[in-house]
Every structure is written in structure tokens, then in C-alpha cells.
């Protein structure tokens, strides 16, 4: 592996991991607060799965960089400055109401399903293997969120209105899913990773149709969408401060 490839792959994996971590963190904020006990358990499971996937990607990045895979994930999560995270603003947004969190999870999972299908075909075997492990669980997540979207969209006037409001807010942020990940352009020629823009086209068609059937109208996107992963939302510094507070109190603590 050339130095350029190494750097590109590590950047790519850390961006994937950061998306999963921050989405999982936002989802975990529902624990103890979801609308019904069963869903509380289900969504906490899902949050934990996302954080587990983040760990897998961080570990893979560690092996690429020659870092210790046992320590690297914690270093990245608990001791990295907010400005060095490479997640999308889509996953940083506060959890909102149940419709918002569920719809965000659906939009993200639907995209991820296509990306994982591409990564399973990767010419870089460790990447293909990790994607294979994650894909199973993500298939289940997608089934769960796909079950909720039409039930809320076609439910009551209130659930429909909340879903539509969530879609109006989320849709512009979701456009950033189509932007190439850090390192992606260096990894594409060797077929190590799928191209985000072509995944986005497939995703966009599929999601639009599904939302329409759930009585939800995709809004027009006005103006430019921020897709630069070095630019974070106003909510992100607080999120990272919360996430890192305890670990930073005693960096050497054994958990």
C-alpha cells in the first residue's frame, strides 16, 4: 500500500466511523425517553450497534496507520478535538422529536445500505470483510426504520405533520451524503470504495419513492448545502464536550 493510499484509506475510515459514532450518540440520547418501552430498548440497541460499527472502522484505521487497535478508538472518540472530527452535520443535529430521529436514521441507513453493498465488493479485502460484518446488522436497522416511516407518515394528522417537518429540516442536510468522503477520490481508481455520487443517485430515487408512499413531500433544496466535513454545526462542540467530559476527568481510568 502506498503512503497516499494509506492516508486516504485512514481518512476515509475515520469519516465513516465518525458518522456512525455521532449518529449512535444522538440515538443513545433516547435511552429512557423513547415513546414506548419496547422502542426504547430497540433504539438503544440500534445506538449501540452504530457505536460498535464506529469502533470497527476505527480499529481498521488503526491497523492502516500502524496504531494500536485496542487504544485507537478511545483516543479518537474521547481525546480528539471537535474540529478534527469528520462527521456530516446530518448526524450532529439534536435528536429532535421521535419523527426526526426515526427519519434521520432511515435516511442514513438507506444510504449506508448502498455504500456497504459497494464496500462488500471492495478490492481491498479487510474493507470488504468489515463491511460484510456490519451489513447484516444494518439490514435489520433499515427494516426497523422502514417500518416506522409509513406508520408515522400515514398515521395521524399530528404524526404526519411531525414527519413532514422533520423531512423539511433533514432533507437539505442529507444532500451532503452524495459528496465524496475524505480520501475517496484516491481510493476509487483501484475499486477499493464505491463512489458516493453514484450511490447518492440510487439512494435519492429510492428514498423519494418511499417517502411519497408514506405521504411525505420531499422539499426543494434552496441554496448551497454544506458538504465539507471539516465544517461542523453549532451543536457539535456541545455534543463533543458531553461525550468527552467523563473520560477527560481521568484519562487513565480503567472501565
Amino acid at each position, binding site marked *: 500500500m502506498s503512503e497516499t493510499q494509506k492516508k486516504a484509506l485512514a481518512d476515509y475510515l475515520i469519516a465513516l466511523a465518525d458518522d456512525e459514532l455521532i449518529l449512535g450518540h444522538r440515538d443513545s440520547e433516547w435511552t429512557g425517553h423513547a415513546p*414506548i*418501552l*419496547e*422502542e426504547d*430498548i*430497540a433504539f438503544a*440497541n440500534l445506538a449501540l*450497534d452504530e457505536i*460498535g460499527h464506529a469502533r470497527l472502522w476505527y480499529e481498521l484505521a488503526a491497523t492502516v496507520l500502524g496504531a494500536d487497535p485496542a487504544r485507537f478508538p478511545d483516543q479518537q472518540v474521547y481525546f480528539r478535538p471537535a474540529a478534527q472530527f469528520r462527521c456530516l452535520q446530518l448526524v450532529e443535529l439534536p435528536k429532535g422529536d421521535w419523527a426526526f430521529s426515526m427519519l434521520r436514521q432511515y435516511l442514513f441507513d438507506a444510504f449506508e445500505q448502498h455504500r456497504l453493498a459497494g464496500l462488500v465488493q471492495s478490492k481491498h479485502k479487510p474493507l470488504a470483510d468489515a463491511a460484510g*460484518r456490519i451489513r*447484516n*446488522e444494518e*439490514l*435489520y436497522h433499515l*427494516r*426497523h426504520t422502514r*417500518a416506522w416511516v409509513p*406508520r408515522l407518515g400515514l398515521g395521524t394528522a399530528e404524526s404526519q405533520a411531525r414527519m413532514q417537518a422533520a423531512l423539511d429540516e433533514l432533507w437539505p442536510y442529507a444532500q451532503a451524503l452524495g459528496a465524496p468522503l475524505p480520501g475517496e477520490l484516491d481510493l476509487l481508481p483501484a475499486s477499493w470504495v464505491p463512489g458516493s455520487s453514484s450511490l447518492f443517485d440510487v439512494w435519492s430515487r429510492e428514498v423519494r419513492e418511499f417517502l411519497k408512499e408514506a405521504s411525505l413531500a420531499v422539499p426543494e433544496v434552496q441554496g448551497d448545502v454544506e458538504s465539507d466535513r471539516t465544517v461542523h454545526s453549532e451543536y457539535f462542540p456541545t455534543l463533543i464536550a458531553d461525550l468527552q467530559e467523563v473520560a477527560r476527568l*481521568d484519562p487513565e*481510568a*480503567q*472501565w
Partner: protein
Amino acid sequence: MMMENKKTDSQWPRFMVFQQAAEGAPVLHNGTVHAPDLEMALLNARDVFARRPEAITLWVVPAQAIYTQTREELAARQSVDQASEEQADYYVFGKFEQQAQCRQIGEVSAGSPRAAMQAALTKYADRQPLWWWVFPKAAVLISTPQDREPMFAPAREKTFKDQAEYPVVTLMRQLRSKQKPDKK
């Protein structure tokens, strides 16, 4: 004066959850979940009951679709006329000890839940459960072989710590003593 006694129960309906742990293993009653419908009940059942333990198949059935009779109730009752309704297939389950899970006994065809119960008593006369459950096959949603990988495979790879493995109390003691450097 008439009192309005309207039930305003906002709770979702209850579904019984059954689980099969391995090929050839009995289908056992595991507990209940609330859900708005069968599909959501199956998903909830997976998250509540099958995330950690082994499972290859989950069943969910609306609690109200289950017709149940205890051994005592059965002893006291009259035999049922064969109902004129259309014949349907029923699953038969029984609970054999107070502490045991309700388990699958077999299947019968009958024209009503009561007739199904009677058919079960005849067909499985050698079995003596404390109580019987019968419910129509059509009321059940069973996870498919295709569901196995996404629903149950990830649990097999997961390690999890038992609560007792977290030495929280010891750690807190150590942390507190660290904060008081003058005391040894």
C-alpha cells in the same frame, strides 16, 4: 345518573412472543411485547428477547388470538358442538410446570378455538399440561429463514459484560483515595 365510563387505554395491543433456539429445538413462549401490528411486534420481539440469547426463529401472535384453558377449567366444562364455521389450522401449546415456559405440542384443524381445544385434548390425550393454549396459524407471524442473518446472526458475535464484571465500587474507592493524597 349515568357515568361515562369510557376506556381511554393508549397502550398498544399485547403480542405473545415465542422463540426457537436451534434447529429441532422446541418453540417456547418467551414473554410479551406491545406493538401496533404484527410486523412491529416481530421487530420488537427481536430487540427485547433475541438480541443476546441464541435464536433462529421468532413467533409473534396477538395475545387476544390465544384461547386458553386450565386443566381445572377443562375438567369442569361441557363438550362443544362442532362449530359450523370454516375449518382452520391451530397451533397447540401447553405449560407443563408452573416455572416452565409454555411449549409447542402440535397442531389441529377445527372450526373454532373451543373446538380446536377439544381436538387438541383428543389428539394429545397423553399430554397433561397445567394449561393449554390454542391459536389460529393465520394469526401468527413467524420470522423467515431469510431473517436469520440480519435478525439473529449479529448477536452470536457480540461479547457482553455481566454486571458483576464491572468493578465500579472498587474503582470509585480508588478514585476517591486518589483525590485525597495526604491519606494513605
